[in-house]
């Protein structure tokens, strides 16, 4: 039996709306987190990630300068960010499938639709912490494994060079984390 030590989790919350940031901060503090940093646009979100090395980023999609999808892509680019494995929870009022897919394909770890509730936010964070997913690298993607389940009836080409957990390293791969 386990529980999450929120007091050991450091967050960056990126959202251009001050009210929304205050709501998310209030929820996180009530969960037990003490280190929460805020950013009001994509650029300051990226700066905050670099400056504070959070354990989890919670980001809106629509923000000035660059949006949450671009922020996610920048973080997942090892040439652009020192924390390419950072868990990213996208929190957005965009609930249409195309936005969920865009966030997933940018490398988001979880997607949460606004309006935010204490239960939904807690469950996403719990999933991020308790069930870290392997990372997948393809020519056009680097991020958490987008397959949430294994289809036993899949009969197509097996595109994975290695099975999850085998930690096969691409010879072209750069050193991702010190």
């Amino acid at each position: 039996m386990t529980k999450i030590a929120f007091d050991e989790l450091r967050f960056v919350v990126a959202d251009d709306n001050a009210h929304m940031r205050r709501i998310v901060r209030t929820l996180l503090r009530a969960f037990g987190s003490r280190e929460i940093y805020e950013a009001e646009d994509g650029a300051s979100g990226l700066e905050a990630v670099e400056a504070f090395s959070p354990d989890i980023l919670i980001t809106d999609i629509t923000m000035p300068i660059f949006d949450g999808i671009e922020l996610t892509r920048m973080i997942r680019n090892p040439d652009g960010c020192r924390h390419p494995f950072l868990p990213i929870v996208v929190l957005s009022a965009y609930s249409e499938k195309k936005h969920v897919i865009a966030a997933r394909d940018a490398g988001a770890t979880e997607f949460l639709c606004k309006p935010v509730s204490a239960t939904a936010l807690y469950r996403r964070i719990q999933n991020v912490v308790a069930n870290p997913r392997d990372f997948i690298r393809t020519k056009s993607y680097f991020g958490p494994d987008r397959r949430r389940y294994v289809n036993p009836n899949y009969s197509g080409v097996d595109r994975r060079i290695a099975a999850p957990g085998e930690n096969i390293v691409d010879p072209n791969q750069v050193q991702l984390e010190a």
Partner: protein
Amino acid sequence: MQEQLPDADTASTCQLNEAGIKLRDKCLKPGVENEAAQQAIANAEKALDKLSVNFDDWMATESKNLTAARDAARAAGFSPDTLGVLFQAAHNLKGQASTLGYPFADEICASLCRLIDKIPDKSRLPLVLLDQHVDAVRALVAEAAKGTDNPKASVLARRLQNVTSDFLAQEFARPHAA
């Protein structure tokens, strides 16, 4: 049978998420998970309840922003910039009105976002319908029409949603609709 091999464009490598495993090891502590989760969620709901003394003011601010964006768009004409600001103001409300206690304002703003986003020819945006959405939100805030148990607000939201759906259906049926 010949083995199918992935091509260079779709091949992927799988990498153990060591950062995620470290985070799990750091933050998962012995304890009763459900009990801890329920406590954390109850604390967060209580904190949100305390914060709610600000919600009417926040809602008034967001509603003013929406009205100002509409007024600016009317004054300057519907350009991608002015419509973008108007859409963003409606989208902000869509994301937080329910949390702030105004679920019908959330629905009305979702309808307004849909109208702005989906209409094939932006120059054909119906001013009256647009005004009706903005004024409905303003009225809900002025009347403090909170919660889901408000028949007038419910009828207003439903009506605006239906009129928007009918209007968009007509627009899509036009010969040159994109």
